[in-house]
């Protein structure tokens, strides 16, 4: 069987930009907006939209903090997000093994 039922794949992660955001957050525990923007190579608006989607799905958590009296928004993967990523990767690996 070479074709895979892509409907089993998580739609939220199965988007290049959101997958990239989650992958960055897998690599680093906490990242701010600018770091994500640089790594994902997205515009502010585009990144904000996708971050919002991931936040609404409870895949990432958002925290606003003040560093040196400057506001900074930092993002972290939630347990749900980690689990979703693991499942997604496992599905891809399963497909390759077939």
């Amino acid at each position, binding site marked *: 069987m070479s074709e895979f039922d892509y409907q089993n794949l998580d739609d939220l992660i199965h988007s290049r930009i959101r*997958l*990239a955001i989650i992958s960055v957050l897998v*690599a680093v525990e*906490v990242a*701010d907006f600018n770091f994500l923007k640089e790594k994902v190579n997205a515009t502010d608006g585009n990144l904000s939209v996708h971050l919002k989607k991931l936040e609404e799905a409870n895949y990432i958590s958002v925290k606003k903090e003040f560093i*040196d009296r400057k506001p900074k928004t930092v993002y972290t993967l939630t347990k749900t997000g980690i689990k979703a990523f693991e499942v997604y*990767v496992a599905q891809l690996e399963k*497909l*390759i093994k077939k």
Partner: protein
Amino acid sequence: MNEKMAIDELQFIKKIIEDSKSAIVYNGKDYIVWGTLVTFGLLLDYSAYVFKLNINFILFWAVIIGIGWIFSFFSYRKRKIEYTPKTFSGKILGGVWLAAGTAMTIVGFIGIPSGAVPGQAVSAVMSVFLGMAFMVSGFIHNETWMKFLPIGWWIGAVYMFYFPGIHTVFVMALMLFCFQVIPGTYFYQKYKKEIEKNHE
């Protein structure tokens, strides 16, 4: 989705993860600064003994260690402001060195003046702490050669426990240079290469 697309997707994930991790490569500056400072202090300490110079050792070491802690504080502050990305391993590493540094400071500034720790054993005791901290660091940095550094520290500690004396100050300075300053320089070069790669 077919097999090729799945492979592409996994490669994409791998690339993003590697790229993100390269942004948080350890720069080795703490090893270099602390190692150089204490090596310098030990050599001066040794020279002062050999040439019978009259210096206040407690004050002298308070200045040396104080400079080190000030450097670490500002370095932490700079990282906090500039580098938001954090990793779990980075937190462990920071915690291990903070604990080792605090323990060594207590031994040096409380243990010795109180008389509870004999001054001639201080280098050996510090080597034991450093070996422990370097062992954890070696596993976190995942550098094979670094996992052997603690053996050097602990062999040195055993030697200094068995053969105490002023010469241990010199041995300790040599060990600090070889087992801390040189590894620090290695990390700094690696960090510089990574930065250059990221700017290409």
